[in-house]
């Protein structure tokens, strides 16, 4: 089953490069690219580390269901 994520949105919001984020969670920068494209589903440990970097709950970053478009979320008050 595909795991959807908003990693690139959070990363852009925090003005972080893939390299910066990779260093924070201890992975190869290419792995961040794989995660963002949905080509790789992270382990629970990595998902929690990523959520901790953005100080967000893990379900804000990853979901089994596709995330609603950002504009839609903003329109409905987040």
């Amino acid at each position, binding site marked *: 089953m595909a795991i959807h994520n908003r990693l690139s949105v959070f990363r852009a919001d925090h003005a972080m490069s*893939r*390299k910066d984020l990779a260093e924070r969670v201890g*992975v190869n*920068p*290419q*792995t961040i*690219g794989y995660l963002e494209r949905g*080509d790789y589903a992270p382990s629970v440990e990595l998902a929690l580390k990523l959520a901790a970097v953005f100080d967000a709950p893990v379900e804000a970053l990853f979901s089994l269901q596709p995330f609603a478009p950002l504009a839609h979320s903003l329109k409905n008050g987040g």
Partner: protein
Amino acid sequence: MFYRSARHPFGRAVSRRSARALVIALYILYPLGCVLRLRPFSDAFGGAADIAGLLLIAAALLVFAVLAGSSLQRQAQEPEDKLDERESAERNRAAYWSYSAFAGLVVAGATYMMIATDLVESGKATLWTPQTGDHWNAVVGGLVLLGMTLPAAVLAWGKETADME
């Protein structure tokens, strides 16, 4: 075998497409060079074939040197604790497939040798088998190259590498 340079401690980044081209070149140049050099079926073209064969083998070794310093070869050869979880999972999958392919090839080669030897001994057919030291060197050299590059070759046929920023 992975060659780590001071400039590229994680291996020279190569796209999967380039890696595939390198692997295909290696797997064509080396056997072709050996066939030209050893000419198992005929002694045609003599010295010219010898030189062409040596050049192709040298080109294959050059391709191997490039591959040996690549990020894919690093992923294939690096100890487990030096890889992240994605690299490690991909490598384990590649190791499984390359082991299966290599084992299958060795079994097929051994079966061929068994059949060829029987047929030659009984005089029913003439199939090529390695006879001289040069023949065996070529076969073993090919197996060594294959064994060292097959996991990276399997990785090269994986998903395209993510763009770097």
